[in-house]
């Protein structure tokens, strides 16, 4: 899978080596962990999914009780610029992501080659390889484990929703009135806790399977070391492309999550190109944005509020690597001090030292 050896994977190894930390027992490049089979990845074969939502029920059963109920009355943020978000009275909602619902299934009729093809797409966090949600969390609440799981520590999260803002799919969902911010300055800072799929971390750590993988009657999902899953995904996508009458070389059109946002550990394979799936999802969302309902609807009507999230129902179009520029800039972090030291030791610009008091001791050396 040469195409998949991205600059970042190269950088991972390179930076670790440059820092001389590769041999440390606690610091290992993620790529090396993947090679050692510890970075896990899931594969979703969408042609198998019948849309029964057993996975959704299992996830809700397992994890909804772990999401606390808010205090009452809820603290009112001051100034009132940030919205209080309370899903505690709508725990039954299962057709979108909410703080109490980490997984939903998008039911689609995808127009393809003159036919409408039924397709069901389970949606949750993609567990990105370089997740902006965790990388940019200022408090370390967003975490990346060495098994590839990206999760949010509910004991530390203040609910500022920055992770949602920077997530290209707007996955994390806020529940106000819960969490540690209540013990600090609830009116002035923080606004709850962000929740999302943690790929069943407490179970996976014990060697068990994620609930949604385990209960699926059609074995839609497989989970395993990333390299192995990627090979499996490529083989499957080649077969799907061939069945669809396309060249097997076009297999990447039938895969989602491989390169999106610089690569994820959630790989979807579909029986038709993902461009068609993305268009069907967009149409689905536009149809459900009824006039007068929600932010998306107001945006659609050209209303005052701009569309900021996706209403808990992420799109499936191409996604640029959010952290790409930061990757490039990290090279500057290494080069700048090296250049500074070199300039200093060679007394570049340093010959003009002047003593304020007019003293003649102006040379650097």
């Amino acid at each position, binding site marked *: 899978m040469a195409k998949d050896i991205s600059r*970042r*994977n190269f950088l991972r190894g390179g*930076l*670790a080596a440059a*820092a001389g*930390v590769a041999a440390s027992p*606690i*610091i*290992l*490049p*993620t*790529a090396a*962990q993947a090679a050692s089979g510890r970075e896990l990845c899931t594969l979703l074969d969408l042609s198998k999914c019948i849309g029964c939502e057993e996975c959704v029920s299992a996830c809700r059963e397992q994890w909804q009780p772990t999401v606390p109920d808010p205090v009452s009355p809820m603290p009112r943020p001051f*100034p009132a*610029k940030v919205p209080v978000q309370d899903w505690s009275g709508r725990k039954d909602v299962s057709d979108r992501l909410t703080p109490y619902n980490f997984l939903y299934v998008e039911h689609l009729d995808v127009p393809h080659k003159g036919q409408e093809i039924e397709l069901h797409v389970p949606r949750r966090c993609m567990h990105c*390889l370089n997740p902006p949600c965790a*990388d*940019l969390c*200022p408090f*370390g*609440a967003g*975490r*990346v*484990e*060495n098994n590839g799981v990206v999760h949010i520590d509910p004991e530390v999260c203040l609910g*500022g*929703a*920055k992770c949602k*803002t*920077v997530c290209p799919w707007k996955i994390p969902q806020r529940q106000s009135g819960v969490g540690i911010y209540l013990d600090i300055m609830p009116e002035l*800072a923080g606004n709850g806790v962000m929740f999302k799929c943690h790929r069943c971390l407490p179970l996976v750590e014990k060697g068990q399977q994620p609930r949604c993988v385990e209960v699926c009657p059609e074995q839609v999902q497989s989970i395993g070391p990333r390299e192995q899953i990627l090979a499996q995904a490529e083989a499957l996508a080649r077969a799907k492309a061939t069945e669809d009458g396309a060249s097997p070389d076009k297999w990447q059109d039938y895969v989602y999550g491989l390169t999106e946002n610089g690569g994820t550990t959630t790989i979807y394979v579909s029986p038709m190109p993902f461009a068609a799936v993305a268009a069907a999802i967009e149409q689905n969302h536009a149809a459900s944005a009824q006039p007068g309902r929600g932010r998306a609807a107001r945006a659609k009507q050209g209303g005052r509020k701009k569309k900021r999230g996706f209403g808990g129902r992420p799109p499936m179009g191409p996604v640029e690597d*959010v952290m790409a520029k*930061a*990757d490039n*800039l*990290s090279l*500057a*972090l290494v*080069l*700048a*001090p*090296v*250049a*500074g*030291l070199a*300039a*200093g*030791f060679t007394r570049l*610009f*340093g010959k*003009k*030292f002047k*003593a*304020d008091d007019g*003293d003649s*001791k*102006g*040379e*650097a*050396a």
Partner: protein
Amino acid sequence: MSKHDYSPGGRVAVWLYGIAIGLALFSGFGQMPLYNRYYLTSVPGLGWSGNFIALSELHYFAAALFMGLVAWRLALDTRAGGTWSWGPRSWWGWSLIALLVLSGGAKALRNAGVFLPPLALMLLDFVHLGSAMAFMFSGLVSLFRPRKKQYLRGGLA
């Protein structure tokens, strides 16, 4: 400690050093989702300050400029003792910079895809925040303290 006040790079370096610190502090504190909440993003011309990705890139840029200048000064320091018209003047200032560079560097490594234990990273996040605040207050004290005293004590704070 000598009484000489060296000014490598002259006014340009002083300004660059100040700009690097200003930008690093602004983009650093902006990593907390406060600028939108407290209407800074509504100030004409500051709408971009709500863009976390842009702020993060600005933080990288400011950090690179800052580390370049500090490394240059450090190298010059080894060749000529004395006090300087810019940069840290005491072990306290150098220690804070060391903490900032180490904790920030660890975070940058993680952002480049290197695995670091999440709990250690959280600790480093707070070390970074704490040392940035200490650096800011020490800097302010140093700026507003009569210059003579600085030389006598030879300190940033």
